[in-house]
């Protein structure tokens, strides 16, 4: 066939049929989208609930094993340890430094990704 004329080429192009996609394509798309198993949801409320259940279990076991005096003693020891930890100036300074770095990084504009996308699109 000769394609010298524009019409002949246009006709031939419009007459070309689309290739059949692989037979499993649709099934794989659906499996990856609408029929995908839901991801494990880790809501803050769920995490809090688990923590609360853990505390209740720990208090229950402590009372069962040594009664109220043991529980009171354990709580007092923990309180002293926490007070000592947060009472240290060095600890507080490190916590403040870590917090400040986290805030700065979260506010930093994501320039490398944007540039990377533009390069990829060229």
């Amino acid at each position, binding site marked *: 066939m000769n*394609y010298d004329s524009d019409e002949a080429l246009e006709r*031939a192009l419009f007459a070309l049929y689309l290739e059949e*996609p692989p037979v499993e394509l649709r099934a794989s798309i659906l499996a990856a*989208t609408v029929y995908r198993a839901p991801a494990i949801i880790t809501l803050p409320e769920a995490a809090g609930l688990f923590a609360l259940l853990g505390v209740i279990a720990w208090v229950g076991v402590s009372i069962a094993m040594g009664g109220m005096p043991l529980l009171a003693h354990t709580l007092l020891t923990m309180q002293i340890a926490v007070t000592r930890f947060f009472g240290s100036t060095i600890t507080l300074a490190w916590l403040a430094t870590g917090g400040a770095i986290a805030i700065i990084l979260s506010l930093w504009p994501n320039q490398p990704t944007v540039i990377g996308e533009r390069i990829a*699109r060229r």
Partner: protein
Amino acid sequence: MSAALLESPTIASLGPDPDDSALVAMTLGGNSEAFATLVERYDRAVYHLAYRTVRDAEEARDVAQEAFFKAFSSLRTFKPGAKFSTWIFSIAYHACCDRLSRRRRYSSEEFPERADPTPGPETQAIAADEARRLRAAIEALPEKYRTAITLYHLQGRQYEEIAQVLGIPLGTVKTHLFRAKEQLRKLLNDERTEETP
């Protein structure tokens, strides 16, 4: 409020050929069947665009799957007045561009600049042979022309939609199509001349 209004709409209730925006809205409302209809409607065209752009069946399949996955994950960002077809083609085209740029970065392989000159078997029907020649010639075109030809001639998309999908001005789409046809004609006629003793 009547009970009918409280019921969530089904695809059947939208008529025999529901439009894409209604299907998107239903998907956002939790109807998975609506998205399956969109997949059914566009998977072949998306695969075809990907295949023509990346020229590899395996990669084209991955691109099609990736495009629908991205569309499904970010369906909430889809603008209500926009066309779903333009959006999904655009996602697929960008996925193709990413793959092509990665391929160019990591491989020194030269892409073919000429059509495959291997003749088809003589027993094959003339029409099928012509189609094969034409496909081979399209595959030999540079990527931007190949994609424009695929969207316009093979998928019947309008200039405006192609411009949006490719992210180029309308005039450039027309120029790409014009040059693509010029190169195709040259490739096909050169091949014909070489075959003639």
